[in-house]
């Protein structure tokens, strides 16, 4: 009962702020509305007992990514964010596309068999994630860090060239 109520409230927060992200005419407000969206998703993670992922979600997305986006907007748009046009004339078309996608997704998801995990959830997920990243998934982990390193170096090179 409580879990359902929590799920509904968290989903409402996530969806309402996501709508603001998409529809707001002011790009700063859009960026700021990402914070409640991310926090709502964090709440859903906690409901799924993935508390480590939830912590990282707040740390990376709500704390760092949003600030990065706001920072970029304020540096490039003269600090107002009002000059960028946020919407175009294709609203009906995109609503149609979104509706079709939603129908398809609901259809597929309703038919898919969802196997339940056989054993109980681990009490402490952080160490499990750490172990998985450094044993079975070590290749994925290393390649991801390589991609990030390349992105970092690319950003430095692009920024340097502008001088």
């Amino acid at each position, binding site marked *: 009962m409580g879990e359902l109520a929590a799920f509904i409230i968290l989903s409402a927060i996530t969806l309402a702020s996501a709508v603001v992200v998409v529809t707001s005419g002011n790009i*700063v*407000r859009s960026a700021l509305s990402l*914070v409640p969206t991310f926090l709502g998703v964090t709440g859903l993670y906690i409901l799924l007992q993935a508390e480590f992922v939830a912590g990282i979600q707040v*740390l990376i997305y709500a*704390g*760092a990514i949003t*600030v990065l986006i*706001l*920072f970029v907007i304020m540096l490039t748009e003269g600090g107002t964010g009002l000059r960028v046009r946020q919407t175009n004339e294709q609203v009906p078309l995109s609503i149609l596309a979104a509706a079709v996608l939603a129908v398809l997704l609901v259809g597929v998801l309703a038919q898919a068999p969802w196997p339940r995990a056989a054993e109980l959830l681990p009490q402490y997920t952080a160490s499990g994630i750490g172990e998985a990243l450094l044993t079975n998934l070590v290749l994925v982990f290393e390649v991801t860090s390589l991609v990030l390193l390349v992105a970092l170096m690319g950003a430095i090179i692009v920024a340097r060239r502008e001088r």
Partner: protein
Amino acid sequence: MSWGLEIVKAVGLTIAVFTFLAVVAAMLGVLLERKIGGWIQSRLGPKHVGPQGLLQTVADTIKLLQKEHIAPRAADTAIFNTAPLIVAVAGLLDWIVIPFGPNLIVRDLNIGVVFFAAMASLTVVGILVGGFASNNKYSLLGGLRSASQMISYELPLATALIAVAMQAGTLSTLGIVNAQAQRGWFVFLQFPAFVIFLIAATAEVNRVPFDLPEAESELVAGYFSEYTGMRFALFQLGEYAEMFAMAAMATTLFLGGWRGPILPPVIWFLLKMYLIVFLLMWTRWTFPRLRLDQLLNLSWKLLLPAGLIWILITGFFITFF
């Protein structure tokens, strides 16, 4: 576990923590700051309201509560009004994982340290948009400086937290305090992490020598130039709550938390916390402000590499000894 009871408990604890913060951290903190500042600069500090000026902050708070709330004409009112709340609530949420005593903790999360870092990182959103929404170039500059500074110093702070968590073998704050009962205070075992944590924490809470976001000689008051009355007070409250939370976290991670002989745990905890707070205030009144490039260099070229190397060394010691 009944959900209704849990919600009542949460509300009660929120009020308790908020009152504690408003009284112990913000009110006493401001008074302490002014007294220590006066002492260091050979002045008397506040002296006239109450005995030895003890009631000065109470008087200031009442004054701020009565003041009119003014929003600048071209400000983005909705964001302008929300920003102080974000800062205050983020400062408040830090305290959920701080153990004041063996059973005196709001909730012992098993991701306690990560939670703390996450909540501390939310403050910057409030500061940044507060500076933006004021529609004032000084506020905006303060907000931007704050964002670059806090993002830069979050990483060294995280490296210090990771090293401690590795040494203790847990992310839970209660677990870290218990680990120190067996292995001695981590301030000895993890001294480099302690130094990195203190420097990064000072920068995270925007205090001198890292107070560029509110440098009064350049930016009026930085991101909260336009704020008046209670919203200004909320910014101050959030800032002091954050600073005391950093001190409390340093106590928990490095100074053995509430543990100590004879005196009750809470007294020990507050003593150690105020020791760190005193250290922060001492720094504030004795050091000049850094330049922006010095500030960023310190973080990216010194603290972050040092933190990463220290994680490596900690890992080496854990594996082989």
